[in-house]
């Protein structure tokens, strides 16, 4: 375990170290202390490694992440794991707006709540929120899964494409073209695997409802279904 202290080392130095890891190195476990709300901590990581951040973090934490596993023992600001490609980000506290925005892959787990626009324009990421999400979540979500164990704010899934939303609580209101769907066996298995990822009791499964696109707003063509 290599300890990095943001009170001593500059943010740029710490990020550069993590972004340019020696490919032959076996030291792939890092702990960052004193994040003090700094922005863009662990942005642009592209190798397999474990990073734990002890404290609250600012904007765009672990943005564009590839392969790395980042854990935050605190809250995160706007745009955590935005545009993530693969790997995982686990926030033990709450997340601010636009968590997991535009992300193509990987897993984002938030133990607390997220504020508005969680999973906006998501393109393949799995987001699991153990608390509630704010308004306009999964706005224009194209692909991937958003699991919400609490409630959702206004206009959930507005203008949604082919992403799936699983929610245990209630959405305050649904956005345009978002509707409740029946869950088949395949959906249940998918949800089960997502709950497992976040160590949530899979007996909870039956309490969830599924939402998705009514496909009335965008030009959906069944012949292209395999593209989603």
């Amino acid at each position: 375990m290599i300890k990095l202290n943001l009170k001593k080392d500059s943010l740029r130095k710490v990020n550069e170290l993590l972004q340019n890891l020696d490919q032959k190195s076996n030291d792939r476990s890092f702990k960052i202390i004193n994040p003090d709300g700094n922005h863009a901590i662990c942005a642009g990581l592209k190798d397999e490694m474990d990073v734990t951040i002890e404290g609250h973090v600012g904007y765009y934490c672990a943005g564009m992440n590839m392969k790395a596993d980042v854990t935050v023992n605190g809250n995160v600001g706007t745009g955590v794991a935005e545009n993530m490609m693969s790997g995982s980000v686990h926030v033990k506290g709450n997340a601010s707006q636009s968590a997991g925005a535009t992300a193509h892959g990987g897993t984002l787990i938030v133990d607390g709540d997220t504020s508005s626009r969680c999973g906006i324009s998501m393109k393949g990421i799995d987001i699991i929120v153990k608390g509630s999400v704010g308004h306009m979540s999964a706005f224009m979500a194209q692909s991937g899964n958003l699991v919400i164990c609490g409630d959702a704010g206004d206009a959930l899934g507005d203008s949604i494409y082919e992403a799936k939303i699983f929610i245990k609580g209630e959405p305050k209101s649904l956005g345009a073209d978002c509707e409740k769907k029946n869950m088949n066996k395949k959906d249940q298995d998918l949800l089960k695997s997502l709950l497992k990822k976040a160590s949530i009791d899979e007996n909870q499964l039956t309490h969830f409802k599924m939402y998705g696109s009514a496909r009335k707003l965008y030009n959906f063509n069944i012949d292209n279904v395999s593209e989603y």
Partner: protein
Amino acid sequence: MCGIVGLYLKNKKYNKDLGKFLTGMMNNMSTRGPDSAGFAIYSTERKKKYKYSICYNKNNIKEIKKNLSKEIKDAKIKIISDHFVLETSLKPVKVISIIKSYNNLNLVGYGSSIEIFKQVGNPRDVVNNFSLKNFSGTHAIGHTRMATESAITTDGSHPYSTGEDECLVHNGSLSNHNNLRRTLKKKGIEIKSQNDTEVAAGYISNGLSNKKSLKETLIDGLKDLDGFYTFISGTKNGLAIVRDEIACKPAVVAETKDYVAIASEFQAMAHLPNVNKAKIFEPEPGLVYSWGK
């Protein structure tokens, strides 16, 4: 962009540190607003005494002081950078008309508790110029400005005060301020600049003068003020924060048993005592939160 901060102390033992804490908060928000900065400090009110925060720019302060002392017999004048605070027991109507008779003075704000200072320049320099770290008090509000819709001048800087012991800072922009300015002027509210935030401050003054509470006024504002905003508003009794329903403009609150800190970003409050043990949350869109007596 702009950065806004507020600090309400629940525990008196920190009163002497108010300026020091706010200095750190403003410095950490200088990246969000490098053009100008300002702050309002509330301290325990002194009965029958009023304080007038006045900007004298680069004029001859010795002469101004001499002349003012002739007109206001019990005037106590404290000079800080390009501002001075005039303390007197004379009635506000009278004092304001005297200040207005000097065309080289700008009244920034007045009241029995509030003192306001604002200046063009990087917030780090501004807080130094005013020696913010030496101020004590019960609560405070600060602003770091990235100018968008009106000029980079002291007049265009926050906080805005349009009534006794009131002030407002704003991150965002209002779209219906011209219309509202006309309506409020007809109601007798004085608005000096072309700035949108001053109109919102006038809106609050109008509400408070109609015997509404700060909270009630801000709730009404959700209907009447169109645009993007996170507002922090102060009175001598406390602070309130509200975000518009879309909530694009950020805000985070940290509450401990000793204080409530509000800021655009968490990094503004990372230096406050025990902040890592605080209850930290983002104000919900369209909800008014207030703290105070």
